[in-house]
């Protein structure tokens, strides 16, 4: 116990033996952090483990669950997961990657509704929400709920079905994760047609309820999800560790009235704090 106490004192508390600066903030330790950061970036590049582009922690299950949760808050009926709308969402995402655009309407004039019809879903009402480069499912839904137009889509009474696609690709030269949410209400004629296949639909519905995820993507995302979480959390923990070390240093500089030749701990603290805030903003992607 005594040894542990001594170790922490040496690491964080400025005193005579560590030249009035905690080891955690000394130049040799800072160099070690830099070498460590350099090596993990090499490691992840070598094994082609991409953090944002191909491994965000966004899952169809969670998006579906959160969308219905938001509807329940407003006493609206839950939406059913629809494979055709999921297919339409996937086609839309692929189209954005292929034609390199980030909008509801393609540069060649293709509308979102064309993808819905192409997937075989005849709609009476339809809607689309888009998001890109988010890290977590919760943030996607929260961002949509903060935007009046997206919120309107999520809470539209007329919709009965929803489909999602979370697709990775290159957009404007950047590895991007796109989230497409398609809403719909089948037209009465397709309802008639659907009733003929009621048995089959029920079976499909059951399968989808068990595993609501897009047709493609899932494998890549699943494989890299853990790595993405590890890296994101490691970085976050490291910044918090640095912040705590700086806070302790500031406290003891003030308490012991230490005057030393060194960088300004208070300035480092402010800098890291800004970086942590930006970290939180970055994890929140963009929506249209």
């Amino acid at each position, binding site marked *: 116990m005594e040894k542990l106490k001594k170790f922490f004192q040496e690491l964080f508390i400025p005193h005579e033996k560590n030249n009035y600066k905690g080891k955690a903030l000394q130049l040799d330790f800072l160099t070690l952090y830099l070498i460590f950061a350099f090596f993990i*970036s090499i490691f992840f590049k070598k094994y082609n483990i991409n953090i944002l582009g191909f491994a965000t922690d966004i899952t169809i299950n969670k998006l579906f669950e959160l969308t219905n949760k938001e509807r329940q808050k407003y006493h609206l009926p839950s939406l059913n997961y629809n494979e055709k709308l999921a297919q339409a969402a996937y086609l839309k995402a692929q189209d954005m990657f292929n034609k390199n655009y980030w909008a509801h309407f393609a540069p060649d004039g293709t509308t979102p509704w064309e993808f819905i019809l192409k997937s075989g879903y005849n709609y009476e009402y339809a809607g689309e929400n888009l998001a890109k480069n988010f890290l977590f499912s919760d943030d996607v839904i929260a961002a949509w709920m903060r935007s009046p137009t997206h919120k309107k889509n999520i809470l539209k009474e007329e919709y009965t079905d929803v489909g999602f696609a979370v697709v990775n690709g290159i957009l404007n030269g950047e590895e991007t994760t796109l989230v497409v949410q398609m809403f719909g209400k089948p037209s009465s004629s397709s309802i008639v047609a659907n009733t003929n296949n009621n048995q089959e639909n029920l079976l499909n519905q059951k399968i989808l309820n068990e595993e609501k995820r897009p047709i493609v993507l899932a494998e890549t995302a699943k494989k890299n999800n853990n790595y993405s979480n590890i890296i994101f959390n490691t970085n976050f923990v490291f910044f918090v560790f640095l912040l705590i070390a700086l806070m302790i240093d500031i406290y003891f500089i*003030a308490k012991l009235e230490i005057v030393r030749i060194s960088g300004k701990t208070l300035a480092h603290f402010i800098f890291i704090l800004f970086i942590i805030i930006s970290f939180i903003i*970055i994890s929140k992607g963009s929506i249209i």
Partner: protein
Amino acid sequence: MEKLKKYLKNEFKKKGFDYLILLTGGIFFLVAINYFKGERFLEFIIILAFSCFYIFWGFYHHAINDSIYIKNVVEYILIAFIVLFLIKLILIP
């Protein structure tokens, strides 16, 4: 705690202008990050710019206070580059 308050008060009073520059830079940085949210490359460029700004700020701050030493400058460079490397890992794989 009293001593900490006194230290912070003293620090902001004596070098208020320097900290004002740093905080202004930080606020501009956050506004820019928020504006270009979702554009990974631009986000990285903004963080790179803020890191460079921080190194220059350290240089300026110590130069003005007659406390500029290689050791101090290296410390600012190390802090800025650690941040840059870790953020790059997340933004640009």
